[in-house]
């Protein structure tokens, strides 16, 4: 996959929308995911259902491919809502937007809102990701 151009933390403003990312979760990706998390539940065996956290992982990956966060950044909290089930080979589009950017003392806080829709333009997942960035992040 070609390397996307990443935006620096200092360039971000509240409301900034990251470039949307489109992807298809094929069966081999889902198999690798299920193996990684050791999930052998019947829900995903011999069905086309995709575990919701596999979708979340890809939404987060799309975000991390678009943003340059400094070493020492901590993923502090996470919210997700799983709105609709996703099937293998559905085409998903992830949207991410800066919801909040704030400095307190020597730390910087960044909250990114996530939205994932399917090929029918139906929302399948929303989320909110919070990071704490170390000192001097504004210099990056």
């Amino acid at each position, binding site marked *: 996959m070609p390397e996307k151009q990443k935006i620096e933390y200092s360039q971000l403003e509240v409301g900034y929308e990251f470039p949307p990312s489109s992807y298809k979760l094929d069966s081999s*990706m889902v198999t690798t*995911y299920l193996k990684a998390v050791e999930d052998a539940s019947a829900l995903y065996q011999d069905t086309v*259902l995709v575990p*919701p956290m596999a979708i979340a*992982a890809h939404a987060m990956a799309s975000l*991390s491919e678009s943003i340059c966060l400094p070493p020492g950044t901590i*993923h502090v909290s996470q919210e997700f809502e*799983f709105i609709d*089930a996703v099937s293998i080979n559905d085409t998903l589009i992830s949207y991410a937007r800066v919801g909040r950017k704030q400095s307190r003392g020597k730390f910087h806080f960044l909250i990114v809102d996530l939205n994932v829709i399917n090929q029918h333009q139906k929302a399948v997942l929303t989320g909110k990701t919070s990071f704490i960035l170390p000192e001097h992040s504004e210099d990056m």
Partner: protein
Amino acid sequence: MEMGLGQLTELSEGMNLPEFRKMVTQENINLYAEASRDFNPIHIDEDFAKKTPLGGTIAHGMLILAYVSQMMSAAFGQSWLSGGRLNVRFKTPARPGDSITVTGRISRIKRNEGQTLIRCDVSCQNQNGDSVITGEASVRVEK
């Protein structure tokens, strides 16, 4: 509706979800990196990670969070996939060799016409009792 916890009417506040344990391995972390396209060296490069304040590789927080999702889907079946919510904080990193205990407890049941909202306190702890993840999960279940 198929639920690992049995009939919806049998659920009550204070009930524990079936807990389970997961061993974190570097192999799982590497597989997760592949599945999630998150190849941050803090997760997969032991030499790099040793030189950081963390002193070694750590699991992706989202990998551990996947265990919570797994507990919820085991308990509530397909309802979790199209009516689940998570709101958690990552407290301590999980490392290869850690044994993670995933627990959940029903904190509130709200029965409305046509559907029931079930809220659960969820957590992941390592073998030392350190909290790795704490938070809340909820699920909407059709009657």
